[in-house]
C-alpha cells in the first residue's frame, strides 16, 4: 500500500477500529450477569457492569491492539452503595414529609425544589462524575483516557444552558446539546492527545429542523436519515490533536438507508426472539458504528504518552446509571 502524505509533509495514517467479539460470547456474559444479579437480588449489578464493559472494550481493536476497561466491580460497588443509600434517604425524607401531613402549597414547593435540584445540580454532577470515572478506566495500549473538566464550571454551564432552553421552550436545545458536547469533548484526553469537538448550535438546529419537518412529511420514514445526519454531525467534528499539532480526524460514512437497515432488523430480531437476541443486537450496532467511522490524519497513535491520572470514585457513574442518562 502506498503511503499518503499530508500538507505538512507528515505521513497520513488511517487507524481502523474493528470489533472482534461475537454475539454468542457476549450473550454468555449477559446471561451469567443475569443469573448472579437474580441470586444476589440486584447487588451484583456493579460486577455485572464491569464484566460487560471489560468484554466490549477488550473486543474492540485499533491498530492491532485492544482497548481496555479497567474498572472493577469492587470500585463501582462503593459508588453504587452511596447512590442506593442516597435514594433510600430520599424516600425516607419523602415519607417523613408525608407523615408530617404537609399538604397543598408546602409539599408542592418541596416537590418543585426537589425537581430543580435533580435537574439543575444532580444531573450535571452525575455527568461530570461519570465522565471522570469512565474515561479514567478506559485505556488503549495501557495509555489512559481522561476527562479534565471542572465540576463547578460544568454545573454552571449546564444550569445556564438549561435555563435558556427552558425559557425558549426548547428551541435553544440544539445549542445546549452542542455547547455541552463541546465542553465535554474539549476536556477529553487520550494520554498526551487532546480531543476537540467543534459543534455549532445553529448548524445543529438547522439539521434538526430539516429532519423534523421531513420526518413529519414522510410519515416517519425520513427519521432514519435524520438519525444518520445527527450521527454524522456528532462524529465529523471530532478531532484528536497532539502537542506538535498533528491531528486525527473522524468522519462518518453511515447513510440513512444503512441505518434504516440496521434499526429495522434490530427491532425485528428483538421482537421475534422475545428479547433473547439483545446481545447480538448490541454487537451488530457496535460493529455498525465502527464500520462507519473513518479516522484519518498525521498523528501517530504510538507516540501518545501516559498523562492521565487514575480516578476511582464511581459515584457519578452509578448516579448516571440510576438516572438512566446514557452519556458515553
Amino acid at each position, binding site marked *: 500500500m502506498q503511503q499518503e502524505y499530508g500538507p505538512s509533509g507528515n505521513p497520513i495514517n488511517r487507524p481502523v477500529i474493528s470489533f*472482534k467479539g461475537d454475539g454468542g*460470547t457476549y450473550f454468555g456474559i449477559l446471561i*451469567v450477569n*443475569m443469573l448472579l444479579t*437474580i441470586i444476589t437480588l440486584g447487588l451484583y449489578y456493579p460486577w455485572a457492569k464491569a464484566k460487560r464493559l*471489560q*468484554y466490549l472494550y477488550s473486543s474492540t481493536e485499533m491498530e492491532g491492539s485492544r482497548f481496555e476497561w479497567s474498572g472493577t466491580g469492587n470500585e463501582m460497588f462503593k459508588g453504587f452503595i452511596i447512590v442506593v443509600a442516597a435514594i433510600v434517604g430520599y424516600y425516607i425524607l419523602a415519607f417523613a414529609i408525608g407523615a408530617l401531613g404537609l399538604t397543598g402549597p408546602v409539599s408542592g414547593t418541596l416537590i418543585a425544589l426537589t425537581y430543580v435540584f435533580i435537574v439543575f445540580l444532580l444531573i450535571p454532577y452525575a455527568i461530570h462524575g461519570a465522565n471522570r470515572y469512565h474515561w479514567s478506566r478506559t485505556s488503549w495500549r495501557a495509555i489512559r483516557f481522561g476527562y479534565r473538566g471542572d465540576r463547578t464550571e460544568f454545573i454552571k454551564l449546564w444550569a445556564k444552558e438549561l435555563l435558556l432552553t427552558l425559557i425558549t421552550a426548547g428551541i435553544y436545545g440544539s445549542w445546549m446539546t452542542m455547547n455541552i458536547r463541546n465542553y465535554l469533548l474539549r476536556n477529553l484526553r487520550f*494520554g498526551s492527545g487532546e480531543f476537540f469537538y467543534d459543534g455549532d448550535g445553529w448548524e445543529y438546529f438547522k439539521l434538526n429542523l430539516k429532519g423534523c419537518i421531513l420526518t413529519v412529511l414522510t410519515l416517519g420514514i425520513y427519521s432514519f436519515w435524520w438519525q444518520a445526519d445527527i450521527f454524522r454531525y456528532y462524529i465529523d467534528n471530532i478531532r484528536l490533536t497532539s502537542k506538535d499539532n498533528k491531528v486525527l480526524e473522524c468522519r462518518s460514512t453511515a447513510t440513512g438507508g444503512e441505518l434504516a437497515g440496521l434499526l429495522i432488523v434490530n427491532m425485528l430480531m428483538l421482537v421475534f426472539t422475545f*428479547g433473547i437476541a439483545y446481545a447480538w443486537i448490541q454487537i451488530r450496532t457496535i460493529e455498525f458504528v465502527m464500520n462507519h467511522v473513518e479516522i484519518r490524519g498525521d498523528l501517530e497513535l504510538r507516540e501518545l504518552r501516559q498523562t492521565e491520572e487514575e480516578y476511582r470514585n464511581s459515584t457519578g457513574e452509578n448516579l448516571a446509571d440510576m438516572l438512566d442518562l446514557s452519556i458515553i
Partner: protein
Amino acid sequence: MFKGVYFNHQVANATPVTIQLFTESLQLDFIGGAMPAKKLHWLFTEITMELVDRNFIRITGTGTDAGTLEVSDPVFVKDFLQNYKHIRGAGLHELALRGGLKASLLILLAIAGIILAAHFWVLPWCADRVVDRLPLSFDKELGDMARASMDEPVDTAASQLLTRFAAQMKWDAPDTLTFTVAPSKIENAYALPGGYIVVYTALLKRLKTKEELAALLSHEVAHITCRHSVHKLCRDMSTSLVWTAAFGNSGAATGALFSNAGALYSLTYSRQYEEQADIKGLATMRSNHVNQQGMLQLMQELQKLDHKLKIPEFVSSHPLTDNRIRYVRREIAANPAPVNDHAEMEKIFRQLEQLYHK
C-alpha cells in the same frame, strides 16, 4: 515459545516479545529493535489477568516492572490458564468466555430453572406467609375499593331476600357478610375480600332449589374465609416484583411475554382455589344440615353453561365441572351428614323465585 505484544505504561508503542511459560511464572524476551536485549520475569503472584475470550488474554504485571502483555493465541490462553488456575479458581464468567454459546445456553437453562422454581414454589410460599400476617382490615379495604370501582346496580328487593336467606345459615366467617343481588345477563356470582358476595340475577334464575342457592353461597363465602383474593394478589405482586428486580428495564417484550404466562398460571391458582372453596363450602352445608346434594345440582346446572362455551380446562379458571362433580361426589360420599327441613329457607327461596317469574 509464544508471541505477544508488550506495553510499558509510558507510551503507546507496541513492543513485540516472545513469552516462555513456566509453572509459576512468565518470562518475556524483547526481540530486536533499538532496545538492548531485555528480559522480564513475572511471577503469577505479581500479575492480574483479564481473559477476553478463548483467543485473547491480557496480563498486567503489578510488580516493579509494571507493564501489560497482550497475547492473541488460543494455545497460549489454554496453556496459561492451566498453569494459572492453581493460583485462582475459575468463575462462572470464565466458563461463559471459554465455553462460548454452548456454555451460555446451559447457564440460560439454569437461570430458567431458578426462575421457574422461584415462581412456582418459593414465591407463592412467601406470599402466603405474608397474607397470614396481613390484618383482616386489609381485606375489607380491598373489597371496599373493588366495590367502589365496579359500582354495580343493586336489586334491592332481591338483595333483602338473599340476606334473609343467608341469615338462616351459620357462617364460619370472621367478617360481616354482605349479600347482594345485581341485575345482569351474565350467569355468575363472585365474592370480594372483606365479605361482599354478589350474585347476578341470570344465575339466580337458573337455581331450582334452596340447596343449590345454599351451595352457591357456601362456595363464595369459602373464598372469603380462605382470603383467596388477597392470596392471589400477593402472589401476583411478589412475582412481578422479583421479575422487575431481575430484569430491570431490559426489554418490554420480555415483560409482555411474562405477563401472558403469568395470566395463564394464575388460572391454575384459581382452579386450586375453586376446588378449596367447593370442599369448604360442602363443610359449611354439612354443619348447617343442608343437603349436600345441592352442590352437585349446582354443578350440573353450571355444566349446562359449560357446554355452551367449550373451553379447554387448561385455560379456564373454574375446574371444568365434570372434574368438579367427580370430587364433590367423592367428598359427599366420604362425609355423610344429617339433613334438616329448613322450612324458612324454603319459603324465602320461593319468594326469591317469584320475583323473577311474575
